[in-house]
C-alpha cells in the first residue's frame, strides 16, 4: 500500500510516454467492447422473446359447429398431460380480438354481413410436449382442426440460437483482440523502460513490484475502454427502447434498467479482467529475457 502513489505515477508515465498509441488502443478497446455489448444486448432481448413466447405457447382447437356444448371436450383436454389451461373463446370475443389487432383498419370486418369468426378453444401448453399434446387433441372426437404456432416459435428459437453462437464468437473475438492489444502495449512499455527494469532487478526488486505499474496500465486502458463502451451502449439502448417502444410495442423487451445494469456490469468487469490478463501476458515477456 505504501507504494500505491508510486505505482500510479509510474503507470501515468508509461501511458504518457506512448500516449497516442495508448489513446488509440483505449478507443479501439472501447469500440470492440461496445460491439460485445451490442451483441449481448441482442442476445438478451431475443432470449427474453423466446422465453416469453415459450411461456405463452398456445394452440387453437376448432370444434365441430354441430357441437352445442364444448364443455366435455374442454374437460377432456384439461386432462391431457402437457396442457395447463384451456379457455373457451366465443365468436364475438374472437372478433373483438381481431378488431383490437387491426386497430384503425378494423372497419374491414364491417364488410362481412355475419361475424366471420368461429368459437374455438385457446389451449396453453408446455412447449416441450407440443407433439404429444397436438396428436392427442387432434384425435379427440368433435375436434375439426388444430392450429399451432410451432413454426414461428422454431424460427424465433433459431434466431436466438444464432445470436447466442454469434455472442460466443464475439466474446472470443473481443477477448483475443483486447488481450493482443493490451499485451502489445505492455510489451512496448517494457521495451521503453527496459533500463529501469534492469536496474530495479539489480537492486533486488521483486517482479511484482516491477510489474505492478504495467498491470495498472493494462487495467486503466481497458477499463477506460469499458467505460466508453458502457456510455455508448447506455445511449444506444435508451434510444433503442424509445424507438421500439413506440413503433413495435408488441415485442416483449426485457426491463431496460435490468438490461443496462447487466451490460454495464459485464463491460466493466470484463474490461477490467481482460486488462489485467493482457498485462500479465505482456509481462511474461520480461521473464523470457535474462534474469539479470
Amino acid at each position: 500500500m505504501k507504494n500505491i502513489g508510486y505505482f500510479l505515477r509510474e503507470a501515468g508515465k508509461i501511458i504518457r510516454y506512448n500516449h497516442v498509441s495508448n489513446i488509440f488502443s483505449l478507443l479501439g478497446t472501447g469500440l470492440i467492447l461496445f460491439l460485445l455489448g451490442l451483441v449481448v444486448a441482442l442476445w438478451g432481448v431475443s432470449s427474453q422473446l423466446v422465453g416469453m413466447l415459450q411461456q405463452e405457447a398456445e394452440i387453437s382447437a376448432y370444434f365441430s359447429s354441430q357441437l352445442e356444448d364444448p364443455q366435455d371436450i374442454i374437460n377432456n383436454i384439461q386432462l391431457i398431460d402437457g396442457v395447463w389451461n384451456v379457455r373457451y373463446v366465443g365468436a364475438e370475443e374472437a372478433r373483438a380480438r381481431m378488431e383490437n389487432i387491426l386497430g384503425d383498419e378494423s372497419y374491414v370486418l364491417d364488410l362481412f354481413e355475419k361475424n366471420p369468426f368461429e368459437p374455438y378453444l385457446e389451449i396453453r401448453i408446455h412447449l416441450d410436449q407440443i407433439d404429444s399434446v397436438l396428436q392427442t387433441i387432434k384425435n379427440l372426437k368433435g375436434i375439426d382442426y388444430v392450429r399451432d404456432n410451432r413454426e414461428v416459435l422454431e424460427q424465433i428459437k433459431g434466431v436466438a440460437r444464432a445470436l447466442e453462437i454469434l455472442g460466443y464468437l464475439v466474446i472470443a473475438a473481443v477477448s483475443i483482440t483486447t488481450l493482443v492489444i493490451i499485451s502489445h502495449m505492455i510489451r512496448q512499455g517494457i521495451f521503453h523502460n527496459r533500463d529501469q527494469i534492469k536496474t530495479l532487478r539489480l537492486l533486488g526488486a521483486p517482479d511484482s513490484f516491477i510489474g505492478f505499474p504495467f498491470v495498472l496500465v493494462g487495467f486503466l486502458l481497458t477499463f477506460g475502454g469499458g467505460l466508453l463502451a458502457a456510455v455508448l451502449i447506455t445511449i444506444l439502448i435508451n434510444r433503442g427502447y424509445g424507438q421500439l417502444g413506440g413503433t413495435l410495442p408488441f415485442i416483449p423487451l426485457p426491463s431496460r434498467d435490468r438490461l443496462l445494469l447487466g451490460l454495464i456490469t459485464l463491460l466493466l468487469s470484463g474490461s477490467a479482467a481482460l486488462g489485467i490478463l493482457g498485462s500479465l501476458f505482456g509481462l511474461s515477456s520480461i521473464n523470457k529475457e535474462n534474469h539479470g
Partner: protein
Amino acid sequence: MIKARNVSLVYRDGTVALQNINLNLHQGGLFYVIGPSGSGKTSLMKLLMGMEFPATGFLEVMGQPIHKRETAKIRKLRRDIGPVFQEFKLILGRTAIENVIMGMRFLDIPLQKARESAKNALVRVGLEHKAFTLVDKLSYGEAQRVAIARAVARKPALILADEPTGNLDHDNAVKILKLLESFKDKSTTVMITTHATHLIDECRSATLIHVKKGEISIERGGEQI
C-alpha cells in the same frame, strides 16, 4: 560473507573471464579488487551480484549459493547488497532523492523512514543541495555520488563498487574512495574494484585482491596470503 571454491567464469562466446578462484572473505572488511583493464575485476563483481553464474566450482555470498537455479533467492540477496555500477544505472527523468528512495521502495522500510535515510545518504555524499535535481542534469561526479547514496541508504551488508574512480581526476577519485571506505564497519563489507592502484597505496588496512588474466592472489598489509 563470501566463499568461493575453484570458481571459473566462462562467457557464452567461450571467453574464460575467471578461473579457479578461491576466496574466503569475512564480514566487515575493506577489499580492493585491483588489476589492469580486462583482467576480470568486473566479472568477479558480476558473479558476486548474481549477474553471471560460475561455470565450475561453488560460490556463496552471505550464505546464498550463486547458481542459475537460485534466481529468485539471488534477487532477495541483492537487497542486502549496495551496488555502485560503473555506468551508475541511475533512473533518468527522476530526481536524485527519488533515485535513492527507489532502492528502498520494495524493502520492508516505511516510506517516511526511507525518505529520511535517502536524505541522510545524500548529506553523507555531499549532495543534499541537489536532492531535488533531475539526475540527467547532474555532472559525472555528482551522478556517481547519487549512485553511492542509493547503495548505502538502505544499509546493506555488502557494498560493491565497480570502478568508482573511472573517469574522475586524481583528487575527486581519492575523495570517492575515501567516501566509500568510510562506510566500512563491523556489519558492512566494502569491496571496490579499480585499475588505479596508485590511488590506494595509502590504504594499508585494506585487503587487496589482485586479478590478473582471470586468476587472483590476495595481499594484506603488504604480505601475500
